[in-house]
Every structure is written in C-alpha cells, then in structure tokens.
C-alpha cells in the first residue's frame, strides 16, 4: 500500500553559493545567496516563501537568523539540528507541513564559511564529559574507531577505504563545480598524511565554504512551475547514540533502520535506486552506508567498492558530484546531496549525467555516525 505522503511534495528549485572558497562572505550571506538562487530557479518570489527549514553549525537559533536575514515571516518553521543529516529530515518535515496546509512554499537552506573562517570544523557542540579528557579529535577520531572495528571484524583494508576516495575523485573530475579535481590513485591515498589511524587526510572530506538551498511545494503546484519536479517519494530518520562509545555496534549504523523505512514509504527496494548520494564525511561512511542501506551484504562494503563499482561507469552510481570527499563539504554537507540528486533527476548534470536517473537516494549522516536520515527522490515517471 502506498504511503499517503509519497509524491505529495516536490523539490522545484535548487541553488548553491560560494562552494569552495568564498573569501569575504559570511555564513548567513552564503545561506542567503543560495536561497535567492533556489527561489529564482523555481520561478518563485522571495515573498512566496512561508515555510522555513534550516540548521547550521554557527547559529544557535538558525530559523530566527535566516528569517530575519531574508525578511521572512514564516507560517511554519523547523530548525531541527541533527548535524549533516538535518536537511534530509527537513525534506520530510517540509512535506508534512505542506501536506497539512501549514505552509505553501518551503525553503530549506544552509550556509557556512568554515574554510575561510579558519579551516576547522565549526561546532557549537557541548563538551562530552566522558570523551573530552582523552582528547579525541572531533569528528575524525570517532570515524577512525568505527573504521578500526570494521577492519577487525570484516577484513576491510586501507586499500578498500582508499578506493572510495579514488571513485569520488573520478566523479569530481567530471564536475566543473567540484573543489578537488585532478588525478588520485589508491597509492596516493595510502601515502597521504595519517591523521587518525587508519584514516589519512585523503580519507577525510574537504573543508570548504558554501551555501545551498532548495524549495519545495505541493505536487499539484510543482507541475506548473518551470523546472522538472523532484518528488519526495519517502523519507525516514533514525538515531541510536550521541557519542561514539555509545553506538550499539560500531559496524552497524542506524541507516539500517532509516533506509528500509524510507524505501518502504517510497515503495521501492535498494535495487531500484539509480543514484545513491551517501554522506561521505570519511571513506568508511560510504562503505557502512552501502551495507546498511542494502546495496551489499554487511561486511562486504570494502570488497564491493573495489574495481570501480561506484566510480564512473561502475555498477552503482554513488556520489556523482564528487561527494564530500572531492566536491564540497562546508561543515554540514547534507543539503548538497539533495542538490546533486535533483540535478541528476532533471538530466542537467552535464558530463557526469547518468544515462537513466528516475530514482535517487539522499542519505544524510550527522554527528559521529549518530543521526541517519534517508530520503528518496523521484522524477515524474515514478509517480
């Protein structure tokens, strides 16, 4: 039976701003410019927006800051902050609010100038009582611990992790907007500076600036707007821990819960997904999510990615923008998954355009593998 929310709302506008380096731009300006670009892309006016959804690493009250900057008086707003996965959650919350008639045009937006502001991950995160004394580096230590466990239990190797970075770079080389382009080999990754065993600097996402935004309306209105709509077919979130030591099993993320529920709402199986946008903050993420979302058996993610499976021309299109590893990663990357998925669904991805793309998965990750939110977008052909 089809879920009542399936296909009820659609992304009708997308925009980015200052991706890469944006010297002289503040976070809220990047958020604002991306928002204007998304609204323009949708063919709407700023004054049409009456639903506001945002989260940043820099604003304690993100919807207040964004609404003031843009001059909006939103009828509905949601500043749920589950790290990088916030924006996949916002898609679901926006679809609910639109379906309930609580708003008519929803803006989801984000901005960060973390690269030019100092190059460190901006975080308002509170001190973790039972972690801070041991000087973990946030967030890489947590992901390195997960990688160590995966290698121990399943025989995953550094070469397999490196293959994820190499595949992402190969996609980035087809994307003129990607920040990190140029050749990258497994040997290059292995020879890179070790940061937190077993992760080298090349196993880590970029630190960039950037803003991103998207606009959603109800499906009936979406049909009349200028862009091909990307319908929200299903979405679900799951969260199992805050601090990495409290993750029930370091080799199994809550994506194993969010994914199946999102697929069920969408009425699809993993085999129907033509583009998997998986939040690749670190190379281990892609491997974990390929497993937990059902693209390969648990423990096989490392072997799955070997031989170019997720690179251009491979069996499964993953992170075709170049991902957080090679395209863009301004602190919280989740909205950029949506930007790329919508671009591919529209058939507007240029040299990296997939031959056939009607169903795209955006899988957001937040915290230290803590929050997982899966969202399935589809073209009109999937309704």
């Amino acid at each position, binding site marked *: 039976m089809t879920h009542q929310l399936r296909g009820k709302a659609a992304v009708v506008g997308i925009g980015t701003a200052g991706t890469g380096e944006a010297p002289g731009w503040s976070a809220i300006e990047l958020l604002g410019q991306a928002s204007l670009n998304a609204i323009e892309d949708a063919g709407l006016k700023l004054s049409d927006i009456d639903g506001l959804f945002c989260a940043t690493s820099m604003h304690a009250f993100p919807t207040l800051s964004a609404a003031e900057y843009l001059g909006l008086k939103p009828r509905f707003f949601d500043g749920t902050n589950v790290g990088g996965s916030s924006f996949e959650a916002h898609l679901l919350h926006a679809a609910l609010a639109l379906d309930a008639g609580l708003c008519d045009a929803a803006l989801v937006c984000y901005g960060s100038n973390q690269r030019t502001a100092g190059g460190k991950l901006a975080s308002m995160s509170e001190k973790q*009582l*039972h*972690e801070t*004394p*041991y*000087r*973990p*580096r946030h967030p*890489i*230590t947590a992901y*390195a*611990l*997960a*990688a*160590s*466990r995966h290698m*121990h239990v399943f025989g995953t190797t550094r070469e397999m992790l490196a293959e994820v970075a190499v595949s992402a770079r190969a996609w980035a080389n087809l994307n003129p907007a990607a920040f990190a382009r140029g050749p990258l080999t497994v040997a290059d990754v292995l020879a890179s*500076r*070790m*940061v*937190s*065993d*077993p*992760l080298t600097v090349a196993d880590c996402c970029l630190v960039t600036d950037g803003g991103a935004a998207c606009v959603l309306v109800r499906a009936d209105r979406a049909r009349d707007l200028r862009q091909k709509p990307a319908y929200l077919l299903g979405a679900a979130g799951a969260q199992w821990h805050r*601090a*990495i*030591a*409290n993750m029930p099993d*370091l080799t199994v993320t809550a994506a194993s819960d969010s994914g199946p529920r999102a697929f069920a709402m969408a009425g699809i199986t993993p085999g129907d997904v033509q583009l998997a946008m998986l939040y690749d903050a670190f190379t281990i993420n892609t491997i974990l999510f390929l497993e937990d979302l059902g693209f390969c058996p648990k423990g096989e993610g490392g072997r799955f990615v070997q031989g170019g499976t997720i690179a251009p021309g491979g069996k499964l299109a993953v992170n075709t923008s170049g991902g957080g590893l090679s395209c863009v990663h301004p602190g919280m990357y989740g909205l950029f998954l949506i930007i790329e998925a919508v671009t591919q669904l529209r058939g507007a991805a240029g040299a990296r355009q997939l031959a056939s793309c009607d169903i795209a998965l955006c899988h957001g990750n937040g915290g230290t593998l803590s929050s997982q939110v899966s969202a399935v977008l589809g073209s009109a052909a999937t309704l």
Partner: protein
Amino acid sequence: MNEPASPGPEAEFRAHLRQGRFMLQRSRSTGRHVFYPRLMIPGSGETDLDWVPASGNGRIYAITVNRAREGAWNIAIVELEEGVRLLSRIEGVETAPIGARVRARIAEIDGAPELVFDLAEGTAP
C-alpha cells in the same frame, strides 16, 4: 520529582573516582550494568540501580591513534567484563590490537581523576 537529597549519578561516580574507586551502576532486578552513570537502565527504564565495584577488566573494542605535530596519542573504546563500553586510552603503548585484554586504572588528567587502561599482564602487545 522530589527535591534531590543527594548528588546525581554523574557526581556520585566522580566522587567515587576521587576516592580511588571505579564504581559502576547495576540493576538489582536484571543484573545489567550501565555506563555512563544514569538515572535508569537506558531503554528498559529500571531505576533499581546500586553502585558496585567495577572489575576493571576489559578488552579493546576499537582503537585509533591521533597523529599531529605535537605527537601521537591513542584513543580506544574498551568493553568491560560487565558488558559496558567506554572511551579511554591505553597507557604506555602507541597502540594495541583490538581484542587485547586491558585493566583499568585511575589517573589524573587535567587535574581530575579519570579512567585509563593498561595492557593486562601476559598480553602480547
């Protein structure tokens, strides 16, 4: 809720550490231990928690070494015999294998007593 007559579980845990004792909470009815200190067993909600001495024995569940200009230091997740896990470090070695047996010790970090671990006697590094 009544006015708390005694400190919360976190403060009580810290007070034990300051007196040289590593204590864990255990549910009387289920025998389950919990860490970090809580008001209940998470999820199932039992509040019949007693403070009991921790065995101090555990195994390395996951480990990494952070590397920076100022040096290298490991961070490990240790699984105690009691079934709970905690973040800590393994002292005296750069790293150690997952599965290695370790033993808890109270050490001062930044002026406060904290738990650290040493490789257990007879464990090959």
